[in-house]
């Protein structure tokens, strides 16, 4: 985990987006994150289709002809000289994850409440690190998710091409 200046550094786990899994039956995507410290357990978050596709485009570094919503937020930051410093998954309530986006400009840090999908879509575009608190990591949903995800992947390979 890279060092940073927050006083909560010791309690945060660095994450990287592993992949975006399609769920062909619903309007959602499953965001699969893994630990950057090499731990094999995964962290999954259900996100909307539009947000999931936005994250997928950021992973592929594919460029759309026109700026999409998260590209526009990044563009605001570039115009104003505001840096997206990091995003942290801070809480989970009734299976809903909460994220905080840290912005920095002229030495002042400001925070914004966000859904993990928006926070991560922006972080990937700004090369900002993604963290989860130890507490949220311990309370993450889904046991045996590896097995479940691999089953889902196989199923999707069969159905996506129709």
């Amino acid at each position, binding site marked *: 985990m890279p060092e940073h200046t927050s006083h909560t550094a010791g309690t945060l786990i660095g994450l990287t987006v592993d992949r975006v899994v399609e769920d062909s039956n619903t309007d959602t995507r499953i965001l699969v994150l893994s630990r950057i410290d090499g731990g094999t357990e995964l962290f999954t978050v259900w996100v909307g289709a539009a947000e999931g596709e936005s994250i997928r485009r950021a992973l592929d570094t594919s460029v759309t*002809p026109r*700026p999409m*919503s998260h590209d526009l937020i990044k*563009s*605001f930051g570039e115009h104003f000289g505001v840096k997206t410093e990091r995003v942290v998954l801070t809480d989970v309530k009734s299976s809903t994850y909460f994220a905080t*986006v840290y912005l920095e400009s002229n030495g002042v840090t400001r925070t914004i409440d*966000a859904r993990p999908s928006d926070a991560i879509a922006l972080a990937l575009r700004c090369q900002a690190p993604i963290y989860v608190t130890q507490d949220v990591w311990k309370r993450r949903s889904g046991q045996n998710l590896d097995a479940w995800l691999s089953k889902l992947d196989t199923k999707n390979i069969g159905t996506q091409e129709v």
Partner: protein
Amino acid sequence: MITQMQVKGLMFDPYNNAYIVILRDEDQSEMLPIWVGKSEASSISLALESVAPPRPMTHDFMKAYLDAINAKVISVVITDLNENTYYAKIHLTYEDSEYTVDSRPSDAIALALRSQAPIFANESVIRKQTSEELDQWLENLKPEDFGKLDS
């Protein structure tokens, strides 16, 4: 020349499986339809109905981002239409300076509605739109397509 526009509503376009945001000018003489994706339409609809979702949606987050750094949306302008690609500009102030940021009209409109900022359109865009796309689209509509709007 630019004309101030109001968002009059949203329609579903069954041919393109997309939504149309209908903009009208104040004396209701000009209409500008803008084709947008499903999630953008949903975001514009929530703003029109002043519905606050339990968690901030993408444009609520965009507004929160600007609020957090004390940036303000002054206006948005639908500027151009080229081969079915739409262009808009968002005018903002941040730390006593003015900025103009390139965007899609859907993002510009969704943000303007949340910022109580006026929406303008270049007259060239209004003319191009009404003469080409809408006429063609309306001509191709069949009576049964209207039923789908209510289903």
